[in-house]
Structure formats: C-alpha cells, structure tokens
C-alpha cells in the first residue's frame, strides 16, 4: 500500500504516532504538502464522516481521528512556503452566551482545521460583543456558533442581530449548529448556513470557500 493510503488508514484508525510518522515520511520523499492533505487527510476525514453517519464510529473514535489529523496538519503547515496562504478561510468559533457546552463545538473546530480553515476558538458563554470584536480584529470570513440548549438558542439570534448592527453581517458567512438547531431556525434568524452535525457544517463551509480558492 502506498504511503498516502497508509496515512489515510492511520488517521481513520486514530493512530496518532503512525499518522505523524508517515506524514514526515511523505514529506521526506518530496511529496507536496497540498497533495498529502488532499490524498491522505481529506480522504480520511470523508471516510470518518461516513462511519459517523452510520454510528459505526462514535465521539471517542472521531476525536482520536481528529487529533491525528490536527497533528499531521501542524507538521505540514510548517513546510508551506507562505504560512497563512494555505488556509481556505478564517473562522471565529464559540458557544453562545448562557451556554457552557462545548464537546460538539470542539469536534467541529477540529474538523474545520482538518479541512484547511484557520479557527480562532473563543470557548463557551461568549457574548455577542466579544464575537464581533474578534471578527473585526482577525478579519474573519466565517462565524461559527454553537449551542446545546433550546433555551440558549435566542442568544444565536442576538449575536446575528449584533453583526447586522455592526455592519459586518453582509461581509461574511454565519454558520450555526447544535442539538436543538434546525434549518427552519437557521433561516428564521438569517444565518447563512446550518450543519446537522460537525461534518455537514464543514461541508457547508467548504462549499463557500473552496470555489473562491479555485
């Protein structure tokens, strides 16, 4: 099995040591980092996504695969000629005000990073003002909002309203997700995109920014 296939398998299995070792080996052989990402890492993430959908994989499995991915990407990004240019877009992420749950958000963040986005994770219980300040400072392209409770969903609406007020809503994309979130809710508050789970969220983000990259 060639090296890239081996890398793909190691990431799917969540074997961090093996995945990072193979990544180094690929680089040593002279393969371009972008190819390693496309053929090794993204393929692995797709496979993990499929297993997640059928419940063959569960949260612990996904987390180890995401961890393996993150570490491989760290190695690869160091060898990019223009650090920063390899990112598809910048994302500011966080769980909304009043909500302190973050496992789901953490998974999305890892997947987003694996897919090539630069993510600034603001943590939990984030008030709208902090989101806006960070978006402005980082010149972010995407705002990723998460919440777990139905009772904190209104904070998502508040955050989006604050974006409008600050005059930046039209200049970027808003992506929301979380257990109680639905497409209808996303439409009703004017979010640009909704992901039923982490993978759908990343898919949406890629649809927006991959085209632009090309």
């Amino acid at each position: 099995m060639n090296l890239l296939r081996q890398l793909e398998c190691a990431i799917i299995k969540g074997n961090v040591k093996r995945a990072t070792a193979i990544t180094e080996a690929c680089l040593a052989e002279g393969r371009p980092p972008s190819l390693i990402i496309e053929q090794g890492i993204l393929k692995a993430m797709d496979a993990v996504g499929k297993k997640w959908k059928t419940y063959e994989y569960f949260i612990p499995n996904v987390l180890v695969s995401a961890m393996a991915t993150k570490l491989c990407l760290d190695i690869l990004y160091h060898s990019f000629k223009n650090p920063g240019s390899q990112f598809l877009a910048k994302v500011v992420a966080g769980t909304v005000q009043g909500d302190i749950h973050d496992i789901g958000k953490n998974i999305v963040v890892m997947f987003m990073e694996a897919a090539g986005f630069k993510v600034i994770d603001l943590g939990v219980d984030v008030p709208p003002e902090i989101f806006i300040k960070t978006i402005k400072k980082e010149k972010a392209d995407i705002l990723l909002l998460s919440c777990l409770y139905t009772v904190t969903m209104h904070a998502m609406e508040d955050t989006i309203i604050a974006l409008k007020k600050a005059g930046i809503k039209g200049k970027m994309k808003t992506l929301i997700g979380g257990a109680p979130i639905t497409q209808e809710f996303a439409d009703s508050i004017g979010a640009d995109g909704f992901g039923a789970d982490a993978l759908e969220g990343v898919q949406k983000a890629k649809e927006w920014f991959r085209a632009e990259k090309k």
Partner: protein
Amino acid sequence: MKLTIQPFNKELEVQKNVLLSTAVSSAGINLRKDCGGIGKCGKCKVICRKGLSQKTLSESKNLGPEKLRKGMRLACQARILKSTQIFIPPASLEGEIRILVDGFLKGIKPNPFVLKRSFKAPIQPSEKEMHWEVIQSKIESDSKRRLTPTLSFLRTLSERESLKDGKTFYVSIGQKIVDIREADDHRSVFGLALDIGTTTMVAYLHDLSSGDLVSVSSLPNPQSRYGEDVVARIQYAVGHPNGLKLLHRILIDAINEMIQEASQRAGISREDVFEICVVGNTTMHHLFLGLRPKTLTHFPYTPLLRMAIALPAKGVGIWIHPEGQIYLLPLVAGFMGSDTVGVVLSTRLHKSKRLKLAIDIGTNGEIVLGNHDRMVAASCAAGPAFEGGQIRFGMPGSKGAIDSLSIDEKGKIHLHTIDGYPAIGICGSGLVDAVSEWNRKGLIDSSGRILRSNEIDNRNLFRHLIKVQDQPAFLLSKGTQKGFLRNIYLTQKDIRELQLAKAAIWAGIQILVKTLGKEIQDIDELFLAGAFGNYIRPESAIQIGLLPSMKKSKIRPVGNAAGTGARMVLTSLKERIEADQIAQKIEYIELAKHPDFQKIFIEGMSFPF
C-alpha cells in the same frame, strides 16, 4: 387476630378464616383482580410464610414451586388462620406503571403539623353557647397552645348548635384552628406526600394520627406532551403565550385527580386532607406554583426561590380542606430540587459516618456523594435513554416492556417482560441488561461498536445480528405473522444513545469523588433511587460502566426515596428541620464547568470490559 400489611405498616383486626384479599381490601388497599378474584390470573401475589390456609391448586398452577418456596401466595386463595404479616409487591397493586410504592419509613414517630386534639367541653351554663373566646381559653388552659381561628372554622362554629358536655375535637394546622368536631366523629386527619416527577407523579396518603400509609395514587405527568424533558417545558412556558398557564393547569388537574383517587381508595373525603408535602425538581416546583421559569433559561439557572415554603392549597388550585396547606420542601440549586433533598433525608446520607453515594436515575440523573461531614451533588442530565426515550423501541416501564434479558450458552435469548405480556418494546432496565449481555458475550467491542459476523467467535449468536437501513442491529424478539407485534431490535444508534447517557452518570460520579478527594473504593454504600433503580440489575450496570465497579452487596435499591422523604416530612416536623439543613449543606457542582468533565465524559462512553 391481627393482620399486618407491609410495606404500608398497616395493622388491622381480622376474623379467623377471612379471605386475605377481603382483608386487604378492607384496609383500603386495592390488589389486582384481573380475573375477578377466582384464582386464574395470578396477579394478586403477596408474600407470607405463616398463618395462612394450605395452598390451593390455583396457587400451585400460577406460582410454581420456586415462587411458593419464596413464600409467595395468592390473596384471593389464601385464608387467614393466625395473626400474621404479609408483604405486597408493587406489581400486585392495581393500575400502576410499576411505580415504586415502597421505599421505607424507618419507624418515624408521628409528629405532624396537622393535629387532631380534644378539649373538655364547658360545664357552666353560660359557656354552653358556641363562641370562640371560650374555646380558645379552654384549649389554652388544656394544652398551653394559643390558636388563631380561620374562616372555615368560624363558619363551622356558627353552624353548630351548642357545645356538648364531655369531649370536643378540633383540628389545627400549626397555630391555626381549622375544624371543630363532635365527640362521636371518629374521622382521622390526613395528609398527602406528593412526588411530582418529570415523567411520573406519585401521591401517598397518610393518616396523620397514626402516621400510617393508607393509600397511593399515581399518574403520568401530563406535561409530557409539551416536552419530554424539563428544558423543553421551560421553553414552552416562557416561549408560548399562555404556555405557563396551560402547563400549570394540566398539572394541577392531574394532581387533584390523584388526590381524589387516593381519598376514594382510603374511604375518606378529600376535605379530610389537611396538608400536602411536595417534592420535585426545580422545574416541576416552579410550574406547580405557576411561576414563570425565566431564571431557568440561562446559566446559572437560579431558582426563583430555594427555601421551603408553606402556601394555602386553595391558592395553588389544589382541592383538599379549604384551609389546607401545601408545604414545599427546599430546593438545592439550579435544576436540582427538593426531590434530591428527599433522597438524602430518607437514606440518612447526611447522618452517615461512612461515605455514601445516592443516585436517582430518572429523567435527569441526580447524584449525591458524602456523609455527615460534607455532601456534594450534581445533576447529570443523562437524557431520556433510561426511560426509553430516543431508543427505537424504547418505552416506559409498563406492560410488555422487556425489563430484563439473558443469553444462554446455546445463544438463545431469554426475555422477561413486565407482567408477562408479549414484548412490544424495551424499557431502561431492559436496555442496560441487553447491552450488558451483548457486551459480555463479545458482540459489542469496548468502543460500543457492534461487531461484524467475521469478528465474532460464537457462531450461535450470528442469527441475532441483522441490518436495519445501513446500521447493524440485534434482534431481540420476533414479531408475529399476523403483524400484531413487530420485530423488536436494538440498533447501533440505540447503543450510542445509551453510551451518552451512561457516560453522563459515570462522569458525574467520578467528578464528585474527585471533588471530595476520595476514591471509588471509599464508597461504603450506593443507594439506587427511582423506579429504574429498583429494577436495574447491578451486575449489568457495572458491566457496561454505568455504575463504578464495586461489590454487588454495596448496592442498595431504595425505591422512591424522594417520595419517602416527602412522607417523612409530612409525618414528622423534626424532619422539616433536617430537610432545611440538608438543602443548605449540599454543595452543588456544575459538572459542565469542571475542567476535567469533558475528558472524563468521553472516557465514560466506552465499555470497561
């Protein structure tokens, strides 16, 4: 001769040769009578080892040698020959969804807030006419109590002809006098302990003079159709116009229904009930009082009020005696309410020298760890999996639910369903048993994944593996040809739901243990409260990692411990002070804020063996 009925602590005088079912019925306890009492259905099971007539043919047929050896009898068949004691298992009571009627009241001396006392009527001719000041001074000189009159009392007084010589009874609720009765009025005074569960509510009617339990009534919480969990109901109450009014009204209506049923069963009027002691989680407490739960919609979810409070029953919409009062036990913090206080009170965890853990795995999953030194508690938000929610064939613990399961060496599945009905679904304890067995037999790996046939050693078990849409699943029960019953199976997704629920409880326990700086081995006793706790098999719970690995003998099911706590508070004033102290003392830990929570939660998802 005497018949003692447990777990009701009821004693009655009976004639020799009376049918056991007749005697039990005269005590106001309704046993199941599916066949009309002719010995065919086998549902009126009681446990009694001596003092009864010889077993009949019906009993041998219905019970079998194993059960007979355990002392089981059928009430409609046995006659009382000598003074004896019987124990009625919950399943033999009429119309329950396996609601826990027991739990235990450890010899509490009755000391209620509601008292029926008497005073010696007047002798002076001038005192024969009814007026308050005379009565007040008689009572004060008799008992040193200075009472204040209530409106109902004054109206009753105004209707009476005159005070008779000899004894006159009166009823007081605390310092208020609420009723006056003739000497030949032998009615007792009654009180109700009410456990408002998110899914199921139970009411226990007690005779406050003797302290005895006289009847029980229970109903599913009608708010369920507006939200299975508390968060959904809070959302409805806050988000919908009239949402709060609606949720409040249907709850009160159902409670009034239970009061009526319990009263009827006990052969009394609902106006003979003078006090109701209520336990429930914070959300139920607020909705019961018709309080808008705005503060429960955001962190830190502070209750509108935490302390114990007494309010007029009329004001809340509860129909008992017009002057009747409702006493609500204190809440702990956040979503953790007085039900947890009730659990601690009845298990005496707060008085224990050794470290004890109490778990109430209901819709929410509350745990308390500690002893008389210190107590820490957390709400695990395990989710509805343990009550059948989010599981493909999940259902509450009612007829036809698979509640336990085992697989023999030949690979055959042995199911047990509630009341022996054909399987129509699976309840919490059945789910834990099923997953535990599959895990033990090597069909689920430690990550929770159902193995493929080429990964399984035991070929006897292949036939149970099926595919449902694109997921693997286990077939538990085959449907019938005519299509009345469906195939019952457990999917990969169902197992994942169970993993989430068990991980929450597991993480909660680990964090509380860490907070006290202790180890799992230091836990001297584990109390399993709630209906689920009574029916779950401890070995299965340990196998799947729901409960920490410990000696089975340390695990004690305690039934509806929250309800028992309410009953203790109803029958003894001393317990009210204890309850207040418990609520003050418990340190509530917000699990999600704990730095290690996420890591431990994820660890807890796997199967340990």
